[in-house]
């Protein structure tokens, strides 16, 4: 899209105006997320830049909100809860989702469209409706306000992502590989472990990441299903915003931004590995 040398002044104007607009849109996308990081070091309990901060005076910065975060038993509990619920719901979602994706990608699977529709429905149904439905159901089986209840509910929300990513990896799967493995004397389990699994692993891992982040970020279900004991990070942030708003939230938010940058990098590396393994891209 480089500007040709024969471009007239109008084209030249459009070219630069377009780039300027695009940069503004990217600024709109990224600035709100980045701006919290410096604000979280604010020495004052305000949500805005103080004069000291703007003049880069060290007095204006402090780690007090991070200290408060790590010394608060409430926040520490919510971090533990988020990790605990996230890990277990991810394990359930990944196991069931991978199995289902293996079945769905078999050519002889009956009613494929209908079953796929059912399996990804937790992704489509508005969260408030899922939460309301699950609230009644889990209350009736005495699982509301317990860890198993929240974990199962989050596992439900995570499964569509696993099914979708693993099915997508299996679309490009060369079935002659399993046949070759069988003809060389491997039993189905060995074939799965040594041939299929390494190839679909990037799909499984990125599905698991999606499932984990879904649980880690989920709040509506937690609002309806969890008691104080099961409060997760988003739930703690929710009450922080609604009840006693303090810059501790900004410290949490900055840490979460850091985590999402790490996750993004992991996923990008996985995607490259997957492409390399299938020989889709050189290098």
């Amino acid at each position: 899209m480089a500007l040709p040398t024969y471009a007239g002044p109008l084209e030249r104007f459009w070219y630069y105006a377009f780039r300027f607009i695009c940069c503004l849109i990217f600024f709109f996308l990224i600035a709100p997320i980045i701006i919290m990081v410096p604000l979280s070091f604010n020495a004052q309990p305000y949500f805005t830049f103080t004069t000291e901060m703007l003049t880069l005076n060290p007095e204006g910065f402090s780690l007090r909100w991070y200290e408060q975060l790590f010394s608060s038993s409430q926040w520490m509990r919510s971090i533990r809860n988020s990790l605990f619920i996230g890990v277990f719901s991810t394990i359930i979602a990944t196991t069931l989702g991978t199995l289902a994706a293996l079945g769905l990608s078999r050519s002889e699977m009956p009613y494929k469209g209908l079953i796929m529709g059912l399996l990804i429905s937790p992704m489509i149904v508005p969260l408030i409706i899922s939460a309301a439905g699950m609230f009644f159901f889990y209350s009736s089986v005495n699982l509301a306000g317990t860890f198993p209840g929240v974990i199962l509910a989050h596992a439900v929300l995570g499964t569509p992502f696993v099914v979708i990513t693993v099915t997508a990896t299996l679309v490009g799967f060369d079935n002659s590989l399993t046949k070759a493995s069988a003809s060389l004397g491997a039993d189905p389990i060995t074939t799965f472990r040594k041939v299929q699994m390494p190839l679909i692993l990037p799909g499984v891992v990125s599905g698991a990441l999606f499932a984990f982040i879904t649980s880690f970020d989920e709040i509506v279900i937690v609002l309806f299903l969890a008691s104080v004991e099961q409060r997760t990070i988003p739930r703690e942030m929710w009450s922080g915003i609604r009840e006693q708003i303090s810059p501790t939230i900004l410290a949490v938010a900055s840490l979460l931004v850091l985590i999402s940058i790490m996750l993004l990098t992991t996923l990008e590396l996985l995607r490259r590995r997957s492409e390399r393994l299938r020989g889709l891209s050189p290098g």
Partner: protein
Amino acid sequence: MQQSASEASPNDHMRDGKLVTADGRPLKASLKTAERRRKIIAFAFVSPLLLFLIVSFIVPIGQMMWRSVDNPTIINTLPRTLEAMQDWDGQDVPDEPVFAALREDLAIAQENRRVGPLAVRLNYEISAARGAFTRTARTVADMEPPYKEQFLDAHRLWGNPDIYQIIKREGRPLTASYYVAATDRRYAADGSIEMRAEHQRIYMNLFGRTFAMSAVILVLTMLLGFPIAFWMAHLPMRYANLLMIMVLLPFWTSLLVRTTSWIVLLQQQGVINSSLVNLGIIDTGNRLSLMYNMTGTIIAMTHILLPFMVLPLYSVMKTIPPSYLRAARSLGANNWTAFWRVYVPQTLPGIGAGGVLVFIISIGYYITPALVGGQSGRMISNMIAYHMQTSLNWGLAAALGSMLLISVLILYWAYNKLVGADIKLG
């Protein structure tokens, strides 16, 4: 099955021009068995998840939707009254036998502690019912026949024929009344259904506002998403990937974090207002109210949903050969015509897919409107949450939820059609 096949194998007609396998079974039957077995194996892989989802997701949602028509309270608590009201003319306050039955029902209900739910249920239909039922139920044990006068003395509602019409109408196992309320209608005196007065129409207005706000967000994400997707699609891979990270980072950042950051930016003492004051554009007294209203919800949700528009648009734009634009130019089209008549139509599958996705997500949105929306920025999900958690009118919440769910499912069906068309084009 196997036995019958092996028994049948010696028969002549099996060899009569028909193929048999080594063990003597007809090939067709043998293949069928193998195919069925493979189908069962495939299904066995899917069944754990399917079962899990049906038990813990599909059935609960079905049960919740059932609540929008389920109506057991009145028929179970007032069976004698309903029977006695069979002969009632439906016009005036009924006669003594109805009150005798009502007294008996209420006395039993009082003993079984079932007056409360009954009073709450009838209060959804007529607002004095809670007081009338709880207060009268406490005195029925001491009543002596004839009862009618004592009922009329106990509460003014008993002199109003409406309550009997309501009991008769709602004394059925299923009710339409939650849907009547959810669509801003009500029962008129003659039992027909009419629209509420203009200023009392809450839910339909809220549905309308939800759809209107989603439409605004949709248009904004299109306007903002199209240029950057176009730019990324035409940059060399190296730069495009870098910009892609800038789209994906918000996508991967916690929803609560993004909402918090908009609160930090938009509030009265927030970054935007303070900067404007410091720059002297506005004075301290006139800080803009960007939050706790519709503006705040729309700004924050546009930011949150923008990646959902950019990603499908970008993937469609990547597949459009640049030679088409050049061909249009060489055939005499100016820049604008080439872009509008040749390029944009080819991006329609992406716009459609991204658009439906953004719209589906935004009409069911709850968290952001609840935190930055205030009164005027609320959406239908917030009303459902209100009836679930605060007013505890679960039937109405279920009716509103079912209406929202059906809208989303229709949109999703449209989305599937669009994405299907996309695949055919590619």
